[in-house]
């Protein structure tokens, strides 16, 4: 566990840089995390992040398929928004835990 400063705010993150407390999140923090990954967040990106946050809040498990069915983007679109690791990155920027695909 470590503390980092993102968008002028001190937030708690784990070893992999995922936020520990989803309530510390705001859009500016997301933008800064995305920038580090070389991604400029658009409205579409934010729509996905909001969807992930609300789904995660309900305690549901997140899968790429679920995002693909959300009506916001299809799976291909999700890959284009978050190249290299759609769910890995999007959940990081959304301030929620890394989706634990079960063993």
């Amino acid at each position, binding site marked *: 566990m470590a503390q980092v400063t993102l968008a002028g705010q001190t937030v708690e993150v784990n070893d992999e840089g995922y936020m520990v407390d989803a309530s510390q999140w705001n859009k500016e923090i997301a933008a800064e995390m995305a920038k580090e990954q070389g991604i400029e967040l658009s409205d579409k990106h934010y729509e996905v992040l909001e969807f992930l946050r609300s789904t995660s809040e309900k305690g549901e498990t997140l899968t*790429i398929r679920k995002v693909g069915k959300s009506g916001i983007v299809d799976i291909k679109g999700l890959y284009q928004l978050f190249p*290299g690791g759609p769910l890995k990155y999007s959940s990081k920027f959304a301030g929620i835990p890394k989706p634990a*695909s*079960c063993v």
Partner: protein
Amino acid sequence: MKNILILGGGTAGTMMANKFFKALDRQEWQITIVDQHKSHYYQPGFLFIPFGIYNKSDVIKPKGDFFPSGVKVIYQEIDKINGEENRVSLMDGTSLKYDYLIIATGTQTRPDETPGLLGNEWRKSIFDFYTIEGAVALQQFFKTWEGGKLVMCIAELPFKCPVAPIEFVCLAEAYFTEKGIRDKVDITYVTPLAGAFTKPIATKMLSQLLDEKNIKVVPDFYLESVDNEKKVLKSYDELEIPFDALTIVPLNMGSEMIERSGLGDDMNYVETDKETLQSKKFENIFVLGDAANLPTSKAGSVAHFAAEILFENMMNAFENRPMTAKFDGHANCYIETGYGKGALIDFNYDTEPLPGTFPLPGIGPFGLLKNTKINHYGKMIFRWIYWHILLRGKEMPIEAHMTMAGKKETID
């Protein structure tokens, strides 16, 4: 008379029918079980069929052999559950009332969900060993195959028995070595996960193992479609992997009956309390086995441990006592690694697979995350245990809850 209705007569449903039949007063309780098929397959045995270690006759028995004679058995496809009316309708138009319902309809493979998978090459050079038909077809294919690129691909998470594809590539490696054509077979393991497995310590051990066996791992590959003409796998981010022979774990989904009943998530798994095993929508509906959306492996061992918890909780519920038994997500899986050896992992919701030893009175200890002969025997003995002890709902000398005894928090 009160009615317990069990949907699905596979591993989970059969265990519960046996447990309740033994425990409950037959004058007071009627137990009914419904399944669409008459044959019970020992699914862990499918893994061995492609390599001729088992044949179909080694893994099949009539379901009826495992249901106690006082249990009412109906062979019919289930249409849907109407939770408000405590009623289940079957495809033949009849319906059944229940006081308590257990959903144990498992998970099914859905090759139809991936474009191109059911194309011209299906069961010609593309195989699924998660069904009896696929496993038998692959045995035939391997008999005369002269080598090339063998790709094992996992289409999507979650899928049942998450170690099975790793076992498959290990057994394939040994099989082609013994045939003397290992140098002509290039084996690649393709997974949507970030590594060979989900949790860090087990991933480390299994990656080393695959590396030693010269099996390539392609992580983070999310399958979009299969091109039958070019014989390539395509991912959503437009990577391509060529194959000469493809074995696939198709998308796994719960029964469509769950969707029709409005009880499932987007993969048709029933929303279930992970500790009590009660459905989140109805108090008198319980869920066991692969059909539940629990955050642990979909495996027979999980169903077995969970069955003990479910039995206790339902017995409490029958007498209006609080449901005090809590499932911890305990899973215990032997991993067959080829050449007469195997590894073992033991874990739960909170504890990832750790190294050490696993105590088992009379037979063990087994080495955890270690590649040993005794673990292989554990796996082979399991078939006998499955037919004779597990399905019949008898006690096994393993605790339902995971124990830390013998486990070490670090790797040697």
